[in-house]
Every structure is written in C-alpha cells, then in structure tokens.
C-alpha cells in the first residue's frame, strides 16, 4: 500500500486537439431511421451534440470544476485507484463510499459530494456531514487499467481494503447505482462488520446483487415478465461487453463520435426521458464531461471489461439461503425502467434489513445527476437512520 498522492486532472492539449479533429472529420450520412431512438442513437441529436462539442463545450472549464474536488491516486493491492476525497463537517460520522457505474463516472456525483460532506453550506446541519469518497472503478477514468477483467465482487474486496487499509477508516457506509450498486451489494454481503469487514450499511439506487428471488405474488410475476422483455430488447450491450469486449474495442477506441453514440443511447434509454427530449433531463455539458472521462482517458475498452468480469465471476446472485443483513436503504427512481426494483417483498428475500424504501416519481438510472436534490435528501435521511457502530 502506498500513501495517497494528490491528483489534478490535466488532459494534454494535443489529446484534446486529436479528439476534436476526429469529431470534426466525422462524415455524416443519411442512415435509414425511424426518427427516434429505437434503432440506437438518434442521428439528429448526435449531430447537435457533436456541433456543441466542437463549438461550445469547454473542457478546460469543466476540468477546473472537477479539480475543485480534492482527488488522489493510491495503490491498493497493485491497482492504482483514483478517487475524490472530501473531508466532512462531522468526522464522528462514518464516511460514505459512493461508487459510479457504466457508462457513468465519478462525475455523476460532482454536485452531491459537497452537499453530503458539509450540509451546512447548503442550508443543512453541519452535524450531519461526513467524509465522502468517490473512487473510479479499475479501468475507468484516471484509475489504473487492470491486466484482465475484474468482476464486481473482486472490486468490492478491493474497496474494503482501500477504505480500511489505505484510508484507515474502520467503518463506512456504501452507496451505488449500476455497477456501483452491485459492488456495494457485494461489499454489504462480503465485508459487513459482522464478517469482520468495515461496511455498516448500504444505500442502493438500482437492483444489483440479489438472491434467487421466487415470485410469490402477481406483482412479482409481472416484474419478472417485465425483466424478461427488457432482456430481449435492452441487454445486447451487456451480452456483447460480457463476452467479446475486444470486438467492440477497436471501433470505440478509434472513434469519439462512435463512443458518444454508444454511450448516449444508454443515457437516453436509462435516464427518465419521458418527453423524449434528453436535453430536458441532462445538459450536453454534463453528458460531454462524463463522455470525455471515457474519450480523453482512453478508457472505453477497459470500462467494458467489468461485464466480462461479472460473467467470469459467476453472476450477481448471492449464495443460496444467505442475505444482506446490514441496514439497507432503497431509492426507487421511477425512470429506472430497464433494471427496476422488484416488489419490496421479493427483494427482501435477499435483503433482510431494509430500513428505508423511498419511491421517487421523477428521475432514472443516473439519479445523482438527474435529480440531485431528491437523491441527496434520500441518502441523508438514510444516513441519519444508520446506527453508528
């Protein structure tokens, strides 16, 4: 374990120029289209997006905003881990480890980190503050590139070591959506204080780790049916990234516009875009900053490896008959339609200590970015309920 080294983002100008050249050189052609997003990315939106990228978007301004968050790189079990680490207003509270997913990044939390760390700056109570740690998953953004795909269970072990041995926190609370949810679920399962780990509690905003859930009610069956339909229509990216990431990698690594299309399709499908207008939910500045953390760091390929890692690790089911017993908070954002929460009773087959369940009528998969106010309120309410060790 090496001690953390402060880190400042500074993408070389030559790299930014090379990206802009490729975006500018993209040859638009008339694809046969239905005018919407049913076939993938919508070309009209993508054209607008690329024009904004070239003419208006200012990476350096966003880089400065990101650099306002204190960042470090530490070596944990041979992996260079990049992370945001903000000291909170009340060190007596256990810290929060908040983990992003794909195709997100630590940027998803840029607005909410300070609100959680020091609520007094945002009209809250300093006593509710705590340290917040937002790492980049191995293979993402400024973290190192693993030599081989790593699965979420292995990353959970890495995170526990990171929190306890590198950052020297005895206990912590884990939060996540998407891969962050699966990683946090494994942390709660494998590294609870009960099992001599450091995890006190877990807060999730997407279904990740689960038991072999048996349907018992009509609602349970309806949910299963919905998941079956979603698997048919919406999980091709997962199937591909989980088996042959290298067949996709050459195209994505070589084409910033191609990466934009692949990633924006997911934002459009997974965010709560009920009016069909992605701009009404997430600004192009937000989408571009997140995208640049893939394009400018050359991490698209390694970001997909976790899908292969989870296949090789054996999936997202906890061992039969066992459950997550740490206090659990569930944030149910209505726009999470591809991976929605099952009915509570069904989920409780695997999470036996749900102390908070909140339904939100707005917001989707990228809750912290889409609905930061509701996300923070939900999380802060949960954190107050967690009994301190």
């Amino acid at each position: 374990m090496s001690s953390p080294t402060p880190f400042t983002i500074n993408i070389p100008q030559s790299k930014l120029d090379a990206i802009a050249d490729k975006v500018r050189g993209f040859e638009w052609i008339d694809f046969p289209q239905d005018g919407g997003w049913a076939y993938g990315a919508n070309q009209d939106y993508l054209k607008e997006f690329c024009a904004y990228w070239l003419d208006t978007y200012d990476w350096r301004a966003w880089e400065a905003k990101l650099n306002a968050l204190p960042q470090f790189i530490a070596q944990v079990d041979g992996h260079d881990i990049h992370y945001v680490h903000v000291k909170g207003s009340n060190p007596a509270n256990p810290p929060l480890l908040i983990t992003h997913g794909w195709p997100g990044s630590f940027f998803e939390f840029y607005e909410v980190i300070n609100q959680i760390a020091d609520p007094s700056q945002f009209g809250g109570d300093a006593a509710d503050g705590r340290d917040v740690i937002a790492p980049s998953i191995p293979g993402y953004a400024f973290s190192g590139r693993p030599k081989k795909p790593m699965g979420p269970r292995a990353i959970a072990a890495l995170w526990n070591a990171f929190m306890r041995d590198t950052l020297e926190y005895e206990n912590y609370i884990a939060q996540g959506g998407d891969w962050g949810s699966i990683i946090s679920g494994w942390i709660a399962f494998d590294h609870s204080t009960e099992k001599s780990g450091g995890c006190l509690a877990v807060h999730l905003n997407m279904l990740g780790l689960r038991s072999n859930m048996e349907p018992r009610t009509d609602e349970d069956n309806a949910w299963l049916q919905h998941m079956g339909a979603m698997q048919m229509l919406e999980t091709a990216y997962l199937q591909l990234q989980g088996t042959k990431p290298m067949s996709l990698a050459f195209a994505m690594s070589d084409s910033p516009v191609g990466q934009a299309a692949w990633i924006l399709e997911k934002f459009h499908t997974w965010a709560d875009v009920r009016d069909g207008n992605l701009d009404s939910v997430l600004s192009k500045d937000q989408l571009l900053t997140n995208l640049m953390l893939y394009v400018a760091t050359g991490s698209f390929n390694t970001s997909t490896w976790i899908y292969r890692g989870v296949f090789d690790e054996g999936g997202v089911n906890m061992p039969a008959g066992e459950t997550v017993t740490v206090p659990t908070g569930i944030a149910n954002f209505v726009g999470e339609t591809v991976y929605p929460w099952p009915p509570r009773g069904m989920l409780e087959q695997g999470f036996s200590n749900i102390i908070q369940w909140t339904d939100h009528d707005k917001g989707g998969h990228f809750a912290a970015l889409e609905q930061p106010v509701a996300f923070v309120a939900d999380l802060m309410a949960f954190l107050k309920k967690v009994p301190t060790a």
Partner: protein
Amino acid sequence: MNRTIAADPFTIRVSDGEIADLKQRLAATRFPNEPDGNEGWDYGTNLTYMERLIEYWRDDYDWRAAEARLNRFDHYRATISGDDLGLPDEDHQIHFIYERGSGKSPRPLILTHGWPSTFAEFENVIEPLAHPERFGGREEDAFDVIVPSLLGFGFSSKPRQPLGPAAIAELWHTLMTRVLGYDRYCAQACDWGSYVTSRLALAHGDQIDAIHLTMLPLRPTTGSKPVTEEEAQWIGHMREWWAQEEGYRVIQGTKPMALAFALMDSPSGLAGWLADKYYRLGDTDKAHTFEGMEQRFPFDTILTQLSIYWFTGTINSANTLYKAGPAERSDKLKAGQRVEVPTAYSEYPMDTLPKTPEHWGERCYNIKRWRHMERGGHFAALEEPELFTADVRDAFRELLNR
C-alpha cells in the same frame, strides 16, 4: 445464348480521394489495449493480429489490383421496384455479376453470400462453375452464374426500410425471371444467403430446380414433432455456443444505430468488428494467435471484403438485416410447411460445433444429398474454392440427373 439484360452495366470504380481518405484514417488509428489471455481471441478480436492487419491495409494492400480483378467479370445493376412485389414502395438497385456459362445449355445458378461477407466471397468459384472445361471438368456441367450483392450490401442500394430475407427473395426471383429471363433456375448459398434461398424455394419452388446450402436456417414449428435425444443434445450445444458468440447479432438486432457511428467512422473499428467472425467461423487453425487466421484468410482476401464494406459505406445497412430478418420471422416454418425443392446440404466444419443431426434438417427440407466436408468453414467458397466447386457441381449433377 445472347440475352438482352434489363440492367445497366456496372464497373467498380472507387475514387482516388476515397482511397486516400481510408489510408489517412488507418494512419490515425487509435488502438485499444488488450486483456491478458487473449491469445486465443477469447475476449474478441486479437490486438496483435489487428496491428498487423491495419499496417498491411495502410501500407501494402492494393485496392486497385482487387478492383481490376473483380472487374474482369461483367457487373450490372438492375432497378427493381418493391411496389410491384407487394413490398414497401421503394426502387432497389441490385448489383450482380453475370458470368454466362460454356456450352449449349448452362443451367442458371444464383449464389448468395451472407454477413459479414460480400459477393467477392465467390470470386474464385465463378469461372470454374461457369466454365468447368477450363478447370478440368466437363462442359455439360456449366452454369450461368449470377452473384448478387444482398440488398444493403456492397454495390446494391441501401433500403430506406430494412428488408428481410423473404422480401429479398422476391427481388431475387424478379432478377432471375424478369430481368434475366429465366423460367427455371438453381440456387446456392450460406449464412443470410441461405435464408434468402430457403425463402425463395418456399415461395417459388415451382420454378426452382434444386438448391444447395451450406447452412440450414429454417426451424420447424415448435411442438409439431417430438425432438429426438440427438437433436436435443445438438440444440443444447448450439445454445451454449451462441451464448458466447451472439453479442454481435443481439446488438445488430436491437440497437444497430448504437454501433453504426463508430463502424462508419473507423476502418480499423470495422475490421475489429468483423475479423473475429472470420476467425471463429472460418476453419482457422486456432492453435496460434494469428498464423492460422492469416493462412486461412490472407490479408489480401480479408481486406478486399473489408474494403468493399468500407468504400460502399454499407456496414450499417448490412447489420440491420439482423433486425429485419427476425422481424420477418424468416427462419420459422408454419405448421406443415417444408422446402420441397430438392435440396443438397454440405456441412463444413465450424469451430467446436457438432454436426447437425440429419433428421433435424429433414424436418424442414427435402434433403436429397447430405455431405460432411472434411475441411473449410463458414466461408466455404472463399476458404476452399476447389472443394466447394466440385461439391456444388456434383450436387447439382445428382439432383438434376444431368
């Protein structure tokens, strides 16, 4: 025999500017890194292979030579209206090679390629099939050889709305009967071409003498007959294999436009997307990372295929066949339906897949001849042109009693 062709002569001619643009893009390629343990292409396309391929494409590959070779054939483009065939109202340009056979009565034979292939797959079998006497065969085995580009592929047009194999079969029948004036003809195919050919045989069996397939795409209506133990085992094995391999077809079948922008922007991306299909489906020696691949598909061969996709900008319109085909349910037979046209099936060894049970094929086709080929894979005409030619010639001689 002189025929008046209701189609315009066509010559492949890529501009110097397009070639220069391709080379420039190849020179600016940004390669991905690779996980440890990808020597056997387990994670998809191998990086070392790609670095060698892209370098060759950029520095050594001679498109003009390939273009001249392909232009030794007579090419045409026929305009066929979908409206006349009960398809969406759109005029399609169908590109095809037309090589008239030797002798007095060559039989017309339409050869249809699949994905990720092109009409060029058949380059080395066209002359031997049309002029057997020049290749040690008998003149009476000659065919008039017709090799079209699938709709949305190569030099055929890109449909505004993707069309599936049954619709393409209607275009083929129009090509063979109305454009070329044949009353009866034979057909041969693999991959998507075998869907088209099977649909052709179902819809126009009264005008088709025989078909030869190297893949059997039709599926019986489930529940019509009990599946045998041998069939059940084979189906189970196919499922396992596809679970590892089907990422490409699932994405192309659901969200082709999530992928299309990258493949249209990056020639190396296009190569990376397609190369592992050749590796996996071809009869490549997989004991080596790239030697076996390069032996089976020399760079010049695979790069001609890739260059056709690149210069025609057809990767997306080709990929959307994976959306149009399932939408048309073109692999499903109705209860009691079967291809009654005499069918020859030649199975080329493919990867680790076990041999198709004969009983399975006979549920859907009137199979008169079944062969297990000793070598060659999914791209038979490209991989083993001599074996392929001899087999096709023998099969039709047998089926047509000639």
